[in-house]
């Protein structure tokens, strides 16, 4: 059987260009020693371990639960230099809000919680790369290249002692780190929903100048008592949280807060009525929110409205990745939401949709 030259040529070409697995992007993600699978959090070009320079990565857990955190390093050829799976460069069960530091070597000036031992065939990182992995992507990290041998000594007692060399390194996040504030990292599962499709409207407009940006969310839904709203004139702040599916998972894209109490202009921000509460801020001081209406009522009559505009309005980069979930909630746990799977408009300047 004769094999056409073109097929042989193609096969030869494929053999020549078929990439070996390597480096921060296509090396398979590890599993931590507790059996939990790692997710990619951030990439770090410029990991250095050479000539008494080491790299420290400092990460804070922004997730609501404990997470495993690891740092994988790769040499200049893309060969991984440590096995997080065996605990090298890994810290398990880092509690919410805690900060941990993983480094390529111990340094005299910084504190490290874990130090990586390079594994053969990798012996130096001159210069390499790294990736932060964790069981939850909601981490915020800083990286520093650090002189491992010098410390900061008072020049009055040691005029010749040189302080350490320090330089910030830039991490590239796979997805934006979890925003802080009251919005949870992922949508709450038990919010009150509209009773039928189309009963909640979402409109986002990204304009130039940004003073023309607009947000409108209208919701009509299940029965809600005035007591469910808490008392925003004193204690109950309200937050609007918008999530889409960026990266294939629910990702917080917008968080806007109407804080409890306070004065907007010369009047109280929140006013109570017999059926609910209304927030009005002509100054748009808080996240560009100008109006929030909370109206209690029986099924089909309860209404919510959030309006914002202007440059202070947090705005996600459009278009969004459906399905989009919007939730309005208080700190007390009561929340209302709507899901938008099929937007009417979803482009770089506008998002408009009626709820599922």
């Amino acid at each position, binding site marked *: 059987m004769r094999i056409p030259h073109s097929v042989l040529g193609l096969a030869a070409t494929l053999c020549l260009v078929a990439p070996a697995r390597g480096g921060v992007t296509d090396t398979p993600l590890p599993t931590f020693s507790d059996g939990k699978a790692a997710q990619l959090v951030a990439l770090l070009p410029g990991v250095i371990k050479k000539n008494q320079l080491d790299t420290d990565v400092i*990460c*804070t857990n922004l997730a609501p639960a404990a997470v495993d955190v690891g740092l994988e390093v790769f040499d200049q050829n893309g060969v991984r230099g440590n096995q997080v799976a065996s605990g090298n460069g890994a810290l398990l069960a880092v509690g919410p*809000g*805690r*900060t941990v530091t993983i480094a390529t070597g111990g340094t005299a000036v910084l504190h490290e919680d874990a130090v990586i031992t390079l594994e053969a065939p990798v012996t130096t990182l001159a210069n390499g790369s790294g990736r932060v992995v964790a069981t939850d992507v909601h981490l915020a990290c800083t990286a*520093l290249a650090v002189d491992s041998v010098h410390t*900061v000594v008072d020049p009055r007692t040691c005029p010749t002692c040189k*302080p350490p060399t320090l330089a910030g390194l830039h991490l590239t996040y796979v997805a934006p780190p979890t925003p802080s504030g009251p919005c949870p990292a992922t949508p709450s599962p038990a919010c009150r929903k509209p009773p039928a499709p189309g009963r909640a409207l979402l409109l986002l407009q990204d304009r130039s100048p940004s003073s023309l940006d607009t947000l409108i969310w209208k919701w009509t839904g299940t029965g809600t008592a005035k007591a469910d709203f808490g008392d925003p004139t004193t204690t109950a702040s309200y937050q609007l949280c918008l999530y889409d599916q960026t990266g294939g998972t629910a990702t917080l894209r917008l968080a806007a807060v109407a804080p409890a109490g306070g004065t907007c202009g010369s009047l109280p921000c929140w006013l109570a009525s017999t059926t609910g509460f209304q927030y009005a801020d002509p100054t748009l001081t808080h996240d560009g929110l100008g109006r929030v209406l909370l109206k209690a009522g029986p099924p089909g009559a309860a209404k919510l409205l959030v309006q914002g505009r202007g440059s*202070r309005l947090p705005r996600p980069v459009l278009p969004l990745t459906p399905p989009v979930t919007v939730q309005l909630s208080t700190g007390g746990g009561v929340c209302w939401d709507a899901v938008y799977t099929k937007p009417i408009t979803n482009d770089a300047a506008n998002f408009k949709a009626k709820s599922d």
Partner: protein
Amino acid sequence: MMIRTVARIGIALLLSTLGYAGPAAAGPTDTPLPTFSDGRPAVSVYIAPGVIKNNNLETDFVCTNLDAVAVDIGLEVFDETGALRNSVAAGSGAFLNVGVGKTVTVATAGTAELHEDQTLTLNTAGSGLNNLRNGSGRVVATSKNIACTAVVADKLHTVQDPAVSSLPPPSLAEIQLIKLP
């Protein structure tokens, strides 16, 4: 039937107990936002992983008001355990009515090289130690329209003219701030 009822009550009590035993608010994500001493509530603007106060290294935050009106600006720092170590509400790390275009600097301690408008005194929460090794931070303000930079700085050295002094210059490194939407 009675055994089943008792079991249900037991489970309810257990769940209730577990509810109370949930994690305490900690770190820059779920620690409640402060209210400034002028009564204005704060919003989160930046998260700062890698706030360091250790071995004569300190962290300076430099923030400029980009808003059209005066704003309050504050820095909250958290130690490695996630404990909040200063009170913006009580004025520690807080600046009130920062004018349009003005820039303020708050640091974990004074440094010889940089200018600070205010320095923090750590409370005894969390580790209880007078250091952050290594911690995190949260820049809060009454408006999102502020811009900040953070620098880890050697607090003892200054830049001297090498023609007249052999003293070495200080260590400085920028840390990566995360702006919140």
